[in-house]
């Protein structure tokens, strides 16, 4: 955490509040009232979150949010590579989420890796008569056609919950008969207010069905850890893992990027859980802490400053061997990082960025931008909770705007006012701002690039940010006629 609050010239609590008020003025009374608590100037030293969060989205405002199913399928379950993940219900949800999150996976597609779309493709008759029987049949078919799948998840879409199907008992019976774990997950999209409940429901099912069902065959070591909340977007896990191994730790399992079911099931035997995406998986860390006494630690692998802080914090949880290796690693990478900074910083210094992403990035990436000489003039989340904002406030400069689940309207208004040099957000926002001539990076998916985690990732990140900001194409946007 930063020591003294950062400041941005020209941004004051008043200017930010005025900007917020202007944006809110466009709403009808009711909408304005609902939205007002979600927008605020940052108070880095505030003791409680400056914005309200994790509330229902105001209807009709064009939110960036997804649903519980998206949180379950796209985030938590999808990245487990050796399972068949069945999108149970109509065809669309699974189709839209097929291959669109960039959680890279090892293995061979259809053999021991299942980055495909499995669906029960509900038809009218399934709605009327229920889909349990179909589910039962398809589980058998999946098991027969994909014998190396270590398990099957059944991810419910909206109709399943509404028509009262009992996927839990179908899964239970089938699991026994097919002799593989079949995990029912009641993550219907209408549940909760965002992806976030999908994460939680998925965490619950991992807790209930998976954790503790396996043990590692090899003997335990004091350096066994697990990497939690890294989904291997663009290869992040591979970068983070290799760094953790370089400092002497054994990454026994990853939740869930490029994940393996049985290793996840054996995670209760590790010595420390390292959590990157706090939002989606802190619950599981707490469960493992309570149930198995495993401590956990939040860390940040974006940008050399935060990586160094994090490595030392991790090292502090282990003995001198690890701590020494941490210092060796830092000493090895710092000059490389400095060279990167020397190359790009002159072209990025003083540039302003605004963020609107999910999970952890609206706060975790700030340091990486700052390493490049940039400053963050606005940040917010799609589906954060209070604790996320509490963690964000000290990272953001004073009085900069914080927005929770902003409507596209609000986001546009803020951008018009703040005139950032770069926006980091999602695909739905990307082209809106590019039309305005504003450089943009998709920061959910690393814009088809990556990894951004770890030292290896920072090089890619720096290059991408420079490319986005300094592409000569932006100079051509304004027509001379």
């Amino acid at each position: 955490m930063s020591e003294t609050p950062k400041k941005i010239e020209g941004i004051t609590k008043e200017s930010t509040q005025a900007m917020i008020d202007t944006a809110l003025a466009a709403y009808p009374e009711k909408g304005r009232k609902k939205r007002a608590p979600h927008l605020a100037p940052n108070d880095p030293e505030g003791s409680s979150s400056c914005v309200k969060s994790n509330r229902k989205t105001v209807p009709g405002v064009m939110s960036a949010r997804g649903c519980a199913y998206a949180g379950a399928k796209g985030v938590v379950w999808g990245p487990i590579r050796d399972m068949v993940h069945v999108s149970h219900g109509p065809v669309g949800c699974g189709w839209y989420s097929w291959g669109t999150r960039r959680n890279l996976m090892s293995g061979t597609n259809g053999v021991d890796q299942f980055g495909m779309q499995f669906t029960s493709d509900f038809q009218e008759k399934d709605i009327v008569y229920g889909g349990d029987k179909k589910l039962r049949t398809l589980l058998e078919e999946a098991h027969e056609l994909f014998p190396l799948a270590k398990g099957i998840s059944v991810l419910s879409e909206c109709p399943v919950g509404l028509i009262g199907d009992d996927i839990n008992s179908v899964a239970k019976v089938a699991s026994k008969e097919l002799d593989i774990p079949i995990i029912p997950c009641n993550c219907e999209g209408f549940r909760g207010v965002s992806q976030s409940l999908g994460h939680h429901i998925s965490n619950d099912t991992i807790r209930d069905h998976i954790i503790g069902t396996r043990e590692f065959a090899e003997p335990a070591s004091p350096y066994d850890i697990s990497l939690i909340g890294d989904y291997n977007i663009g290869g992040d896990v591979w970068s983070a893992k290799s760094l953790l191994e370089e400092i002497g730790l054994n990454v026994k399992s990853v939740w869930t990027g490029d994940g393996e079911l049985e290793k996840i099931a054996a995670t209760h035997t590790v010595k420390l859980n390292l959590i990157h995406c706090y939002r989606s998986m802190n619950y599981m860390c707490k469960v493992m802490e309570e149930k198995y006494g495993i401590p956990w630690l939040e860390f940040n692998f974006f940008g050399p400053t935060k990586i160094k802080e994090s490595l030392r914090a991790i090292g502090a949880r282990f003995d001198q061997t690890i701590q020494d290796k941490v210092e060796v690693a830092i000493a090895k990478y710092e000059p490389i990082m400095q060279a990167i900074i020397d190359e790009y910083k002159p072209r990025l210094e003083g540039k302003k960025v605004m963020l609107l992403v999910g999970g952890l990035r609206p706060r975790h990436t700030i340091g990486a931008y700052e390493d490049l000489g940039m400053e963050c003039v606005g940040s917010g989340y799609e589906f954060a909770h209070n604790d996320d904002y509490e963690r964000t406030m000290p990272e953001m400069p004073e009085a900069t705007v914080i927005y929770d689940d902003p409507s596209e309207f609000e986001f546009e208004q803020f951008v018009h006012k703040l005139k950032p040099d770069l926006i980091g957000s999602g695909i739905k926002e990307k082209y809106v701002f590019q039309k305005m001539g504003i450089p943009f990076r998709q920061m959910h998916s690393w814009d088809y690039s990556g990894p951004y985690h770890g030292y290896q990732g920072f090089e890619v990140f720096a290059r991408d940010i420079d490319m986005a900001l300094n592409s000569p194409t932006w100079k051509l946007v304004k027509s001379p006629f």
Partner: protein
Amino acid sequence: MSATESAAAVKYVTETPPEEIARVKEWINSEEYKEKNFARQALVINPAHGCQPLGAEMVAHGFEGSLPFTHGSQGCASYYRSTLNRHFREPAPAVSDSMTEDGAVFGGQNNLHEALENAVALYKPKMISIFTSCMPEVIGDDLTAFIKNAKQKGCVPEGLPVPYANTPSFNGSHVHGYDAMLLSILQTLTEGKQIEGRCTGKLNLIAGCDFNTGNYREYKRILEAFGIPCTVLGDISETFDSPCDGTYRMYAGGTKLEDAADSINGKATITLGPYATSKTFGWIKDNYSGKHASMPMPVGIEKTDAFLMKIAELFGKPVPASLKAERGRAVDAMTDAHQYIHGKKFAVYGDPDYLIAYVTFLLEMGAKPYHILCSKGSKKLEKEIQALLDASLYGKDCKIYMNKDLWHMRSLVVTDPVDAMIGDTHGKFAARDAGIPLFRFGFPIFDRVNLHRYPLVGYQGIINMITFICNKFIDIKDETCEDRFFEMMR
């Protein structure tokens, strides 16, 4: 003993032996596997279609100032939008009324009303086009009543058109949602607009559930060459291909509402996507003034000829010389390039209207549309494609697979190889496993740039398809041939 017992109870993490992986890798390419795969009854793997609301949103974007509105869960809306964003690399502004659990209990009326008020205030649409995702469909929301109430309550300004369509995701595909939404928009906008004796003199043209903006532009260019005024109904060409000039236009294009309203008085109405407009066109035939024609997408020479001749006939105007010259240039490209594609086998998949287009084009070039697969097809479609195959020497041995998915397609291309695939991005895994190129002519295209800007229809479309296909085949030859076969000329 108890130690052993407890040890026995522990299940250890296992690794699949490499030889087992190798065995399965081979097995999934086998005839035996293909049979098992085709025996599937319940599990669908890698289907080639989305759900109804996606098509509804697409066409809703095709009208001036129209704000697409998902009545249902917000996650649905995000999925549709991002799918369109990725394909077009363009904004797709749309809202939902964010129904949640309480909707299951109370219905979605409150959400709908509140959402209408907010959307009107923030996004100032000229029309709000409502369609449904699963939740309201399952719980049985009465949209007609809800919207009537909304108007009474003043949630929407007087006179703002609010077409709506039921687009259940557990029925049909995006193609059907397109049809349903378009029908409702036209019904809404034309209501009371039919004027006895009035004729706009214009052609109404419906492209079908077509995600290629270049095609729309090509239709307009053709009609311009004819000098025939035209209203493209559901015109996404500007919406999804808007300039980058420093200004974001939330409603960048679309058919003018006035023109759409007046389309009921048109001189003629043509649909070029018969499978995507069966409801809409049925209604038009019964309700629109003027003449009506339903024709396949004008892909390939013969179907383009038929389209142009139909226009000539409907408007009593000859096909302009410039188009005749274009025809000659397209035929020239075909004769010049036929040797690079003649006899080559293709696996094709996609929405019905696209599928017919691919088959037509390939047969005209002397190529074989060898595996033809539709993941949401019909007997009618099968019959129509079979007739195309039967009429050509090159249709021999080609086979149609209705209501199969891309995992079936994978079995087909690995057991009975072809030279290339045509379809959308989702086929890339099967194409990779088969070691063949995939020509991305369908929807969605998530992994190449600009392809939606190149028309596939009309004579220019033929040239484009030849360019993409034949040059890729030559690329492959140049890249894979032995040194002694690497040549200056091809």
